[in-house]
């Protein structure tokens, strides 16, 4: 049979394709049939958080920091409760990472503050002596892309039915709602409101001035995202 295939390239190619596609079909399809269901307390991202997530991705923070706590005592001691599949229901793309040059960040919002992140991005070694993380001064100058974040919110809401403007159950039994603005202008207004809350805890005068003038520097969006990781 193999000799025959070697003389018939078309059938050879078909045979190869079927052989390599086999494992994918068996491994991947079953999991897709039951798409990730969010666990209680998992919310979609707000416009500002999503813009911050884009800053995180733009600077490949995931190259050095994981967002996946494995079920070992040493990891739960260090980072908090181990990860559950449903907690990633609204993560497009996933940001588990593959290398920990720095610590895991999945629940960093539980133990770091706005102030800490601000200092850390400016001069990591001043906050954590011995840190090999580079500084990110341009995040204090560049403006966050709220438009694209809003476009993504509209997209996931429309295409994947991500529940914006809907009641979401929280762990304490209460309900909460994440709003999706009706227009881009409204999205910008609400993102700026969120940004003011973050900037209030920051020291950098240029950032404060920018927010007061209606601008949102990247660092503000990034910190809003990091604070949301819990």
């Amino acid at each position, binding site marked *: 049979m193999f000799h025959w295939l070697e003389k018939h390239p078309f059938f050879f190619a078909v045979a190869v394709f079927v052989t390599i596609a086999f494992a994918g079909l068996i491994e991947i399809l079953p999991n897709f049939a039951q798409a990730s269901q969010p666990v209680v307390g998992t919310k979609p991202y707000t416009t500002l958080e999503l813009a911050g997530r884009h800053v995180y991705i733009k600077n490949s923070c995931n190259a050095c920091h994981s967002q996946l706590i494995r079920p070992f005592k040493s990891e739960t001691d260090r980072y908090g409760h181990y990860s559950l599949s449903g907690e990633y229901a609204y993560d*497009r793309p996933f940001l588990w990472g593959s290398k920990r040059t720095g610590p895991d960040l999945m629940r960093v919002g539980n133990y770091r503050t706005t102030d800490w992140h601000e200092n850390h991005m400016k001069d990591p*070694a001043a906050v954590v002596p011995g840190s*090999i993380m580079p500084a990110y001064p341009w995040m204090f100058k560049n403006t966050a892309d709220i438009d694209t974040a809003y476009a993504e919110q509209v997209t996931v809401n429309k295409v994947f039915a991500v529940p914006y403007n809907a009641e979401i159950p929280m762990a304490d039994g209460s309900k909460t709602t994440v709003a999706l603005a009706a227009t881009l202008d409204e999205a910008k207004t609400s993102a700026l409101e969120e940004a003011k809350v973050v900037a209030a805890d920051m020291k950098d005068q240029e950032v404060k001035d920018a927010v007061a003038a209606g601008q949102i520097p990247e660092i503000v969006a990034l910190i809003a995202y990091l604070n949301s990781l819990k």
Partner: protein
Amino acid sequence: MDNRPLEYDYTVAKMFMLTTVLLGIVGMLVGVILAWEMAFPAVNTIAGSGLAEYTNFSRLRPLHTDAVIFGFTFSGIWATWYYVGQRVLKVSMAESKFLMFLGKLHFALYLLVVVAVVGSLLMGITTSKEYAEFEWPIDIAVVVVWVIWGMSIFGLIGIRREKSLYISIWYYIATFLGIAMLYLFNNMEIPTYFASGGIGAWYHSVSMYSGTNDALVQWWYGHNAVAFGFTVPIVAMIYYFLPKESGQAVYSYKLSLLAFWGLMFVYLWAGGHHLIYSTVPDWMQTMGSVFSVVLILPSWGSAINMLLTMKGEWQQVASSPLIKFMILASTFYMFSTLEGPIQAIKSVNALAHFTDWIVGHVHDGVLGWVAFMIMAALFHMAPRVFKREIYSKSLMNTQFWIQTLGVVLYFTSMWIAGITQGMMWRAHDEFGNLAYSFIDTVAVLHPYFTIRAVGGTLYLVGMFLFAYNMYKTMTSSRRVEESELQNASPMGA
């Protein structure tokens, strides 16, 4: 037509040989910069604080991996395809104007993609999925380049004179099909600009998959991009170039059959080993782990077949640096395909995952196996393509030893670093508290990061020797006759 032997047309092969050398140097130079940045963070701002955004570790890291995978390795794969394809199918590209046009179009579009990738990654335009960082417009361009290559493969096969497909052709076909399937499914994404009615950045997209599913598809792709980019086409090369250069027939046809079909069937299951102890279902993690161990069989099948091809002719390893490159490559292939399965065993993975040991594993595979084999292939092709002998044998030998030393420094330092890191992360004191803070585990790695940077720098030096040797071969080496080009490549002193 008279009875002259076929004149093969190497125009396209030459173009890709050029990008193999250039992008190899670029990719590895970026890698060396990254290695020094990790050892000495001040290197991040080496071009001044104004340019720090573009010389920073986080921006260069995807550029490094993509330049080495899609720049160096794929250029090498295509350079060898446009050489090997004609020769084993006994047909010249010059016989078909259409195939010649496709080949040149393939190269031209590829160059455009390279420019777009470098620009966008430096700007921070990325989807964050490893080795699939490109946004949708580039993804579409990649698919077009790929389809053109496919047309070129099957076009050449269509007009072949040799009826039976040689082993190398099996592997090239598998490379084409495997990557096509993986790339398409992993890059399913929705452009937000169009879905939202024209808001935001036009190039931005959002993944079709979320969370755990996204991770599953990504590592099904990510691991198998290694399979069909770093294993399958490189095996295609060694099956052609080692028998040619050594003058020995492939040891066993049956073993090559077993290894090929075994590899095709088993490899795709192994992606799950990237997700052990994650939130994907447990049975998938187990399948990934078990099949990774089974994968030793087909991998070693090819490697042993190659080593046994040298039976009775081992003196060639001592006398020819070209054979040395290929034999070391096969040896590193065996080494790396044993190391991988060990890391995929659950208890070992618990320690090794997220550490530098994984980085070491990738690099002993890529530097020791992939890059050595590609350089050997280019060395073998050069005299036949340029009709000149290889400029310097002693330079080849020097390059071989410098680069071998570089690889050894690289993987040994990363083994120690990775295992140290893993052990320190999990260490508890006698009261059950964590013994070390995270920064303790960073500080202890400094010497190993420095050794790695030295190893990488040595390898890069070897790349420059390689480029110089190739350049001199092209321009000022002694001309050779067709009769000198049977088996062993002619080399200057």
